[in-house]
C-alpha cells in the first residue's frame, strides 16, 4: 500500500478507525507509567532540588510543539503540490493541539524559570521563539476560521504556514542576535550520558513517547472530525441543488 492511498478520505477513515484504539491504549499506558514514574520515583537534582520534576511535562510538550509545526509545514506542502484533502485537514486538525502544547510548555517553563532563574519571564531567545510560535498558531487557526470555501482556506493557510515556517527560522536567528540566552540547550541529544543521567532520562523518554502517542490520537480524532464535517457540508450542498 502506498502512503498516498491515505489521501482518499474513505480509506483514511477506515484505516484511522482501525488504528485509533491501539494508539489510544498506547497513549494511556505510556503517559500513566511515565508520569507516575517521573513524579513519584525519581530523585531530586543536586542543584535544582525537586523543581527538576517539571522537566517531565515541560520538555515533552515543548518538543512536540515544535514538531507539530514542522508536521503542519509538511502537510501544507503536500496539499499545495498534490492537493490531497486529508493532508490539508490534518494540518488544520493539528494546529489547535500545537497551540495548546505550546501554551502548556510556556506556562510550565515560566514556573520552572521562577525557581531556577528567579523570574517567570526572561526575554531569552528560546522563550521568545516559543512565544512567537504561539502567535503563529493563533494566526493560523484564525485564518482557517475566517475563510468559508474549504479549498481556498486550505490554500491560504498552507501559504501562510510556509511563509510562517521561513520566518520562524529567521526569528530564531534574529532573537539569538538580539539577546544572549540563559535557557539551557536541548538536553536530549543521543549521547545522553553527557547531558543527563539515566534516572532522569528513562522516565522522560517514556513521557515523551506518551505525549507523542497522545498527539497522534488527538490528531486522528480531530482529522476524522474535519473529514466528517466536510462530508456533512458536501451532502447538504448536494441536497440544496
Amino acid at each position: 500500500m502506498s502512503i498516498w492511498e491515505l489521501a482518499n478520505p474513505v480509506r483514511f477513515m477506515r484505516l484511522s478507525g482501525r488504528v485509533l484504539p491501539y494508539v489510544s491504549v498506547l497513549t494511556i499506558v505510556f503517559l500513566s507509567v511515565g508520569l507516575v514514574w517521573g513524579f513519584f520515583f525519581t530523585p531530586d537534582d543536586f542543584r535544582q532540588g525537586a523543581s527538576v520534576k517539571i522537566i517531565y511535562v515541560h520538555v515533552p510538550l515543548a518538543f512536540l510543539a515544535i514538531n507539530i509545526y514542522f508536521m503542519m509545514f509538511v502537510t501544507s506542502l503536500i496539499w499545495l503540490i498534490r492537493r490531497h484533502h486529508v493532508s490539508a485537514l490534518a494540518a488544520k486538525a493539528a494546529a489547535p493541539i500545537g497551540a495548546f502544547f505550546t501554551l502548556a510548555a510556556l506556562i510550565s517553563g515560566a514556573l520552572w524559570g521562577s525557581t531556577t532563574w528567579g523570574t517567570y519571564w526572561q526575554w531569552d531567545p528560546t522563550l521568545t521563539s516559543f512565544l512567537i510560535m504561539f502567535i503563529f498558531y493563533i494566526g493560523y487557526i484564525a485564518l482557517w476560521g475566517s475563510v468559508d470555501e474549504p479549498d481556498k482556506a486550505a490554500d491560504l493557510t498552507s501559504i501562510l504556514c510556509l511563509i510562517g515556517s521561513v520566518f520562524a527560522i529567521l526569528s530564531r536567528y534574529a532573537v539569538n542576535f538580539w539577546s544572549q540566552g540563559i535557557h539551557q540547550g536541548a538536553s536530549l541529544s543521543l549521547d545522553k550520558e553527557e547531558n543527563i543521567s539515566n534516572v532522569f532520562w528513562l522516565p522522560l523518554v517514556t513521557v515523551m513517547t506518551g505525549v507523542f502517542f497522545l498527539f497522534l490520537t488527538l490528531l486522528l480524532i480531530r482529522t476524522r472530525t474535519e473529514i466528517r464535517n466536510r462530508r456533512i457540508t458536501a451532502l447538504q450542498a448536494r441536497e440544496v441543488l
Partner: protein
Amino acid sequence: MIPELGRYAFSVLGAWGSSIGLVLIITVISIYRAKVSKAALTALEKQHKGK
C-alpha cells in the same frame, strides 16, 4: 513515597497541573467535537438512505 517538594511545591504542582489541565482541555474538546460531528453525520446518512 510522596515526594518532598518543599519550597518548590508551588512551581512543580503548578507546572504539572497546568500542563495536564491544558492537555485534558484539548482532549475533551476534540472528543466532544468528534461526538457531535459523528452524530450529525449519522443522522444525515440515515436521512439519505430513507429517501
